């Protein structure tokens, strides 16, 4: 391992440690979502400074060489600089790495997939050697080894003067092999109450929750599909962007969302082939008791029997917490497939994720 690789590894270790120590902060940080790429996420790490070389005369000879006694405060007077300030360092962490950190820190068990059918996924790996290929993939060691073999066979190799000169026929190139790996398929159906009582703060909490749930489940399933449903008194399926941006002023009928989610699953995701996850977020203010009963009915008869898990997150608003969480608690006191979590504020996201994903379902 070269020195630069060692340094890079050490740097990564520091970043990992930093993320681990401040995971709760990152998990509740809305800022981080804006830094999300396709496979990586940029994490601002203000406390880490990269060492750098400074050119010039080494006249001062180190720190603490100026006038004054030890412990004497530095004169704080001065003016603001007209130069740009230093920005905090941002470290790119892959979502895979992030999922690993969450898994370790929250002590999340690996998910035990179910379903008889596995979907085959192809993955290319550079494991083979080829006689032709682009120069960028030339395998130097194998090329010289081949040249050495040839020279020994021809008797042109002199151990006292070990010069090896590869010719065109000696060249060897890295080549890939496509490995087919079986993997389980999963679908997550996110549902969110976008009625008038769900404000921006509540939506931000939901957005962060879904980000972490997505990250963890993607780490566990290679074939993961996500579907999004929003509802007030009516439910509709939307894309990810609309899911987080929409705000309506209507009332709340939770059963409409459960009905639509159930239709989607029945039409497109046979339970024998898919691991099915439902997550619903609301402030718990359902319009009526009769709709609560409808929801309980849909859960009992249709949704829980096909689901790996059904997560219900109740986000507190300025107006407190609604009744729906209690309705579910009362109706499903011991059902392991239904996981309930109350999320009073952003700081509670980490605990809520642990509640949702801590059972390894």
């Amino acid at each position, binding site marked *: 391992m070269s020195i630069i690789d060692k340094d890079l590894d050490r740097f990564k270790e520091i970043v990992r440690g930093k993320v681990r120590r401040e995971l709760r902060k990152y998990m509740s940080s809305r800022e981080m979502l804006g830094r999300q790429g396709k496979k990586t996420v940029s994490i601002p790490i203000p406390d880490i400074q990269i060492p750098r070389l400074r050119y010039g005369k080494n006249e001062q000879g180190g720190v603490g060489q100026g006038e004054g006694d030890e412990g004497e405060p530095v004169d704080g007077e001065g003016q603001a600089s007209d130069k740009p300030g230093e920005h905090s360092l941002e470290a790119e962490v892959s979502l895979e790495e992030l999922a690993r950190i969450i898994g370790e820190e929250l002590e999340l068990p690996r998910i035990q997939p179910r379903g008889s059918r596995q979907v085959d996924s192809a993955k290319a790996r550079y494991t083979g050697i080829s006689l032709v290929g682009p120069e960028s993939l030339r395998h130097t060691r194998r090329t010289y080894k081949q040249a050495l073999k040839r020279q020994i066979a021809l008797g042109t190799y002199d151990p006292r003067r070990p010069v090896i000169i590869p010719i065109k026929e000696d060249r060897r190139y890295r080549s890939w092999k496509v490995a087919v790996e079986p993997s389980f398929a999963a679908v997550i159906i996110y549902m969110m109450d976008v009625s*008038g009582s769900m404000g921006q703060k509540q939506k931000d909490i939901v957005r962060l929750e879904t980000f972490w749930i997505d990250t963890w489940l993607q780490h566990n399933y290679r074939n993961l599909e996500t579907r999004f449903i929003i509802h007030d008194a009516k439910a509709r399926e939307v894309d990810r962007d609309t899911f987080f941006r929409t705000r309506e002023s209507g*009332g709340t009928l939770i059963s409409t969302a459960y009905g639509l989610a159930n239709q989607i699953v029945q039409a497109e995701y046979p339970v024998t082939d898919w691991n099915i996850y439902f997550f619903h977020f609301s402030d718990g*203010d359902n319009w009526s008791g009769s709709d609560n009963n409808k929801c309980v009915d849909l859960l009992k008869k249709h949704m829980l029997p096909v689901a790996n898990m059904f997560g219900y997150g109740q986000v507190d608003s300025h107006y407190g*917490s609604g009744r729906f969480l209690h309705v579910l608690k009362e109706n499903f006191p011991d059902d392991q497939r239904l996981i309930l979590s109350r999320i*009073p504020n952003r700081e509670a996201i980490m605990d809520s994720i642990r509640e949702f994903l801590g059972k390894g379902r």
Partner: protein
Amino acid sequence: MSLSRTLETELDRPNTTSGRVKAESGGSIVEVDVVELDRLGARVGGIKVRRGKPGDVATQAMAAPGNLRHLGEGLTPIEVEPSLGGAVLRSAPEEMDGGEFWQLSIGDSGREAELGRYQVGKSGKREQKPFTLTREHLRRTVDGMEHALEGRSQTEPSTAGSV
């Protein structure tokens, strides 16, 4: 006699001290859960006004804040759902923990309105709390709720009761 005046007559009866007080006038009914009562004011658990005719819930929800401005904390329509025949209006609580707020629920296709005071506990649980109104404010509240159900945009400045 207006609905609020009829209620006042009921409240002034010598045997009325607490419990549900009901008054009826011109096809409208008001019910007040009285916790304590005296000559100047009343401590009430909730106020419900009901009228015979249904109304346009969206118009009623728009009309209510102006009609109940005297409560001191502005009501805002939170959920308005004509298809479900109702609306919920709330005032903004000042703080997350222990904050109190008004809630006006319009229901039964605009036939009834119910006003209550709620408090959010530390566990996030919402509890209905009794609240105190002067007789004058109680009268204006009943008038305001009745006018909101009629879809009238704002209560006329009340002169009734001032001597």
